[in-house]
């Protein structure tokens, strides 16, 4: 499992990428999905997840859908049209960042 500092900077990107690839998801589902996809290497902490989800909603990047589940309410999140664009930008930026880090830390010397 990676340290929370490493995950913190990528949280928005992870959430946006996951949500833009599926129809809608709720908070617990997001954490489980990430855990499943990374084989438990990345576990989103709830303490960071919900503030980010609420902020993204307030910014109009995410829209929500409220559904009654048993005795409680469940909030489903989905990406708006502007959010999809931002998700794409975030992923591109991050991929560029990774390339730079690989080069900077000399992890995989460039061939040729």
């Amino acid at each position: 499992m990676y340290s929370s500092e490493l995950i913190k900077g990528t949280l928005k990107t992870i959430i946006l990428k996951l949500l833009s690839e599926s129809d809608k998801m709720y908070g617990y589902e997001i954490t489980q999905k990430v855990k499943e996809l990374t084989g438990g290497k990345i576990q989103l902490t709830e303490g960071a997840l919900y503030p980010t989800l609420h902020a993204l909603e307030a910014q109009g990047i995410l829209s929500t859908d409220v559904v009654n589940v048993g005795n409680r309410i469940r909030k489903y999140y989905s990406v708006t049209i502007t959010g999809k664009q931002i998700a794409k930008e975030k992923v591109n930026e991050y991929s560029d960042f990774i390339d730079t880090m690989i080069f900077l830390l000399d992890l995989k010397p460039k061939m040729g």
Partner: protein
Amino acid sequence: MYELSKDQVDFILEDVRRNGIKTEELQLSLLDHICCVIENEMSPDKNFDDYYRSVLPRFFKKELKEIQEETDLLLTFKHYYAMKKVMLRSGMFSAITFAIGAIFKIMHWPGASVLLQLAIISISFIFLPIFFLIKSKEVKVVQQKFIIGFGVIFGILFCLSTLFKIMHWPGARFMWLLALGVLFFLFLPVFFFSGIRNPDTKMNTILSSIMVVIAGGLLFTLTAIYGAKYKEEAIEIADLHLKNVTIFASSSLDDKTNKIEIDSLVRIELKQKTEKVLNNISEVRNSLYKYLGEGKSVNEEELLMGYRNDYLSCHQFFFKSYTRNPEKDLPKEILIHLKKELKTYQSYVNQYFKISSKSILNLDNQNRTFDGKSVKTDWEHIYFSVTPFETIVRNLNQLEIDIRLIEASCI
């Protein structure tokens, strides 16, 4: 899969609330999440209470309300970057407009006051308020928030008092004194005592405080007490004078016994003498305009447009030196000459028309208070010493009206 009862769900919701989660949205989000964790991850043989207690720490480092604080922070700073951008742009705009406006003003080009107004309005109503919002969120200590707050209030009042002053709107002086009050009695004490406690900032705090006191004090001495006191006094004198003239004019018109048959020759002589004195007054006025216009012949309107109301320049024109002491400040030839002419005219009128013009034109020495002590002051000093441009023009105009009144009452 474990199934939660309604009581258990209510218990979790109540516990989340109790632990400092205030907004309903967040309460419901966390409730669903905790319920999901328990339903999916707890084996049916385990105790609900124990499991719940063990799940909860996954949500925080120290306390559950961290989530609420983090959410609040992210939500309040929703417009952070937009605000920062507006702040920087309005700051740049104000600085550039102010610099250009100042150059225009010095050069007496048209448009100076529009530029200065724009700069001051954007700095006091856009830049400084946003500066306060952003900076006060960035600092954690309460005193620091107060320092920023008082600083911003001082800044806004200072800018607005400058605007009011250059636009000649009423209230500039009051606002300026209020700004100084905020600076000296609110900003400085908080700044000084909070900074001096920290050994790292002690030295800088003392130095900054000294500089603030010096700069504020200098501005205060330059603007607030001196000019305003004299200006108001001068206006008061002019107004009293006008009142006297009106009373005299109406009483002399009523007084039928004073009427003398005047033959046309005397009438012509009176007219000539009157014109001569009036010419003298115009001469004084024109040479003052020329002096303030730096050698170029300009009129009153142009001078007022350029706000050349500096009482020191006017004083320098009428008196050789600047000492603020009526006994040492010697009037220049131009004033002595005018006074002589006025006296000649006065005695001529007294002699031939038996009219005492004293109540209109009082050229005698009077007792005036300077720095708390009563000093015998001559006519030149009362009307021309340390007096703003507008008031001097007003006094000269008044003098012309007085002469005309005397002439009218003779005929």
